[in-house]
């Protein structure tokens, strides 16, 4: 199968600092990929680079091929034809992703009339159908409301609806549930996953929560210090992680059943913290926190690929 998005040696930097350092990644049709890492790992910058929405002064190098288009080299004008048509993004903060001065309907109208040939006249019907498929109650009323009049969970569903309305082949969701509470989180993700699979779109779920990836994604890619350190089928990677960082991340996940059954005295933690972009160590970015580090780690480990799994480590488990 041909990937719909093929990223090769992607670098994102502003000349002084480098946030993404040579990432290779394939996204296949219908795939749900969980991109995991702590803040500062480069996962959001990766998403923004694909969308050509990098902050001022930052630029991408390498290639990210969607169909026959290289998203890294095309002009902003050409990117306007891709963004919101072939790739859509769902942002973390639903309140700042919507225009506070405009009603929800206005947002939908702009997207639907662009995405469907009869959208200009039938936008209301089409948006109502999308919203009721997403389980939004009183969709007609919701369309007349302003963003601040809706709850966080509802707004997040509106954003999912807007992404679905673009009929994109790839949806990037950047921490879509960090601002909603746990009970709603599940509901929002169920909605997102159902909507993307109905559309036949692929999904990149950017998150720091391994439990979400474990439950909702078929593939996992772990980032640390701008590198993609490990990737592969979710279950395989989580059951048998090979990169020490993946292992530490799995370990530090606070699992309710484990707390109830074993009454842990102390939750396992990863010693130290993620180095900032200014003070990235030479070689493997994780080596200063790693218990398997050796002198070899002072050089950046090469990416090894075997049986659908990639790994960037000198001393894997």
């Amino acid at each position: 199968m041909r990937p719909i998005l093929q990223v090769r040696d992607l670098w994102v930097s502003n000349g002084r600092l480098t946030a993404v350092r040579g990432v290779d990644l394939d996204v296949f049709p219908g795939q749900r990929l969980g991109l995991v890492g702590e803040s500062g790992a480069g996962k959001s910058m990766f998403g923004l680079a694909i969308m050509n929405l990098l902050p001022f002064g930052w630029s991408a190098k390498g290639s990210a091929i969607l169909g026959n288009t290289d998203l890294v080299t095309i002009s902003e004008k050409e990117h306007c034809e891709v963004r919101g048509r072939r790739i859509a993004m769902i942002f973390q903060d639903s309140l700042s992703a919507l225009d506070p001065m405009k009603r929800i309907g206005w947002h939908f109208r702009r997207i639907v009339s662009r995405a469907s040939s009869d959208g200009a006249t039938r936008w209301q019907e089409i948006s109502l159908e999308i919203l009721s498929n997403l389980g939004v109650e009183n969709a007609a009323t919701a369309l007349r409301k302003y963003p601040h009049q809706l709850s966080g969970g509802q707004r997040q569903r509106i954003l999912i609806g807007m992404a679905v309305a673009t009929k994109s082949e790839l949806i990037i969701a950047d921490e879509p549930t960090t601002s909603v509470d746990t009970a709603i989180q599940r509901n929002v993700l169920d909605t997102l996953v159902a909507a993307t699979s109905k559309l036949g779109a692929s999904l990149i779920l950017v998150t720091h929560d391994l439990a979400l990836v474990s439950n909702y994604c078929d593939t996992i890619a772990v980032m640390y210090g701008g590198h993609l350190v490990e990737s592969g089928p979710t279950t395989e990677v989580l059951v048998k992680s090979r990169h020490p960082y993946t292992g530490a991340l799995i370990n530090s996940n606070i699992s309710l059943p484990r707390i109830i059954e074993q009454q842990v005295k102390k939750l396992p933690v990863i010693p130290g913290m993620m180095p900032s972009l200014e003070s990235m160590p030479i070689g493997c970015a994780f080596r200063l926190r790693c218990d398997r580090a050796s002198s070899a780690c002072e050089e950046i480990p090469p990416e090894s690929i075997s049986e659908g799994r990639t790994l960037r480590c000198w001393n894997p488990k």
Partner: protein
Amino acid sequence: MGLFGKRSQFHALNDVTLRIESGESLGVVGSSGAGKTTFAKVISGQVRPSAGTFEFRGSDPLSKDKVKNREFRRSVQYVFQNPKSSFDPRIRIGRALIEPLRSFKIEGNHDEIVMASLGTVGLDRDVFGRYPHELSGGQLQRAAIARALVVKPELLIADEPASSLDVSIRAQILNLFKELGDRGNLTLVLIAHDLAAVAHTSRKLAVFESGRVVESGLTLEILRDPQSDAAKRLVEANLTII
């Protein structure tokens, strides 16, 4: 009457009765809008209940007695969700931590008290001279906890203290709360929507729903066998790895 006609009354809390023993750790859980934060505001004296009573060590702390009032404000300290917005960016950490000591006119060597408090939460001494932006989210939340501890409170209330932090740091902060709670001389109220967080730190649990306490008791018992729908929903919503 309000300016636009009769004001409708909204009850953020409704008939809540809870008793927190000294030295106990209580977890408060519920979905957003359940009244968790309002409850925290009542027990920290920021909001006066419109009906019912709130007693701290057997008496009403919100009395007109200035000395008593002051003593209450020292005994109850609060840690907010977002450490970035609970520090003044222009003031060094050390000075920010001395501030409460001055305000409550606590005697002694302030620098030393602050250093000791920074030690308690596992921060280096050199944090004293740093500005908030120079610390990471986890370090800054530790500093916020240290600030709450400098005045030797009896009750520490933390409203979602770990939910804005990264996974690997979240565990560190929760471990710190567990440690503080286990020492026994501090009463802890930890508010969270994440059950796993309170399960680790709190011996007792209160589940809120639409302004009411729908279930309360020992944390482990509730989590093993939740009775109310709200508690069941929270346990169910908790996702695990594989």
